[in-house]
């Protein structure tokens, strides 16, 4: 579904990604872990071109999206993204946050979008918040709504950029729960996170990144039970 070939990204002289090769298949749940500054967020943001790669190729559903002629907006409609800081639109109600993109892009009629949004809200248990503004709800609720907002576009893959890092500890669970349910339904997911338990339980594959490279990747059992790379051993000893 997503194929990355020799991806490089540099901010000025600072090289963040130094040649990433990766293939993510349909239905996989890939969790990316690594120390801060290892380039994992940049890698994720390159996948939907929020960061423009310096060189390398990214293919999404057999389209070369790093080609300048590629329609980036169309590609992004199929690739949902959830941010660390939620990034809900504060001037719109929860319902409007969810329906804005599908309606303005003329993918759904106003009624369809609303119906769809209410169904999704019900699924994450936030039906009664439809008419609230983002400033009136908690962080965990915001993040669940951000997930719903992405889901409303019916994406083929969901990218999560540290979705629980900005949350109070007691709210982490509710967001992870929604993500778990999403995983069980078969959504293809790429998750950058520090939640090792989530990686252990949900991931089909875990990647360890450091200094702009993927140093190790394996199934969670092998990843946590029998790490090979010394830097991964060091990292795990610190976080577990």
């Amino acid at each position, binding site marked *: 579904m997503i194929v990355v070939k020799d991806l490089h990204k540099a901010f000025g002289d600072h090289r963040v990604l130094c040649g990433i090769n990766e293939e993510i298949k349909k239905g996989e749940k890939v969790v990316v872990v690594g120390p801060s500054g290892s380039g994992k967020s940049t890698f994720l943001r390159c996948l939907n071109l929020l960061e423009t790669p310096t060189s390398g190729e990214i293919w999404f559903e057999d389209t070369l999206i790093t080609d300048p002629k590629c329609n980036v907006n169309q590609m992004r409609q199929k690739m949902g993204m959830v941010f660390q800081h939620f*990034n809900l*639109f*504060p001037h*719109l109600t929860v319902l409007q946050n969810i329906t804005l993109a599908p309606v303005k892009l003329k993918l759904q009629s106003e009624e369809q979008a609303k119906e769809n949004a209410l169904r999704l809200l019900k699924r994450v248990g936030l039906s009664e918040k439809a008419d609230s503004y*983002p400033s009136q709800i908690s962080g965990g609720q915001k993040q669940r709504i951000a997930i719903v907002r992405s889901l409303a576009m019916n994406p083929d893959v969901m990218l999560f950029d540290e979705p629980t890092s900005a949350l109070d500890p007691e709210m982490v669970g509710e967001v992870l729960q929604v993500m778990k349910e999403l995983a069980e339904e078969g959504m293809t997911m790429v998750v950058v996170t520090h939640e090792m338990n989530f990686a252990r339980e949900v991931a089909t594959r875990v990647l360890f990144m450091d200094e702009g490279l993927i140093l190790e990747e394996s199934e969670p059992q092998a990843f946590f039970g029998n790490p090979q790379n010394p830097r991964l051993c060091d990292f795990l000893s610190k976080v577990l």
Partner: protein
Amino acid sequence: MPDVSLITMNIFDSIGAFFQSLYDQFVFVFLDGNRYMLIVDGLKNTLILSVFAALIGILVGLIVAVIRLPSNNLKNHNKFVRFLLAIPNWLASAYVSIIRGTPFVVQLLIMYQIIFGKSGMDKMVVAIIAFGLNSGAYVAEIFRAGIQSIDKGQTEAGRSLGLTSFMTMRYIIVPQAIKNVLPALGNEFIVLIKETAVVGYIALMDLTKAADFIISRTYTAYMPLIGVAIIYFIIIKILTKGLGVMERRLRASDSR
């Protein structure tokens, strides 16, 4: 011993006389010869001028602000395309610095005597364009600051949903920016309304020119000038109140 009642009577008499003379002057200055019609016409022109100039200012300001925003997807293009894309940005910057770097009265006179000098264009239209373009430069800076004050994450969220950069601007960034800049914008319009008082330079009969006119007819300055000042004050008071109401409405989403 002086008679207290006589003194109080004297005070009342002089107060009464003062108001009587005020009234007489008012009648003489404004009502005789229907001179109040000058004020009415002047007020009408001041309002038309302010409203249309403000509308042009908002429109021009918004366009210029968006053009001047730093663009980050230039890297994908070659040198020539980048050069072409830089032209509007350069023009917008030049416009803002020229307008901000020269006195408004000079701009108005250039507009009237040079740019539209031989065209026979209606004075009102010339004045609206001059004021609108002037205001546009300041509004552009206000909008630019407002747009840049919106968190980058908002743009990223919009774009990640597949919205185009125009849609993201239109539905996500600008509505939030306007809310943030409303006080500054209101200030700009207050300045604009008061600034229209110099339009007499091109002999357009606005409120101030009307007062001027009455002074030259009646040889009295007090009543016309104070009267006009009060009218300006009331207009701006109403505007301020209106903006206050609008601000409260827009803040609805901030309430907790």
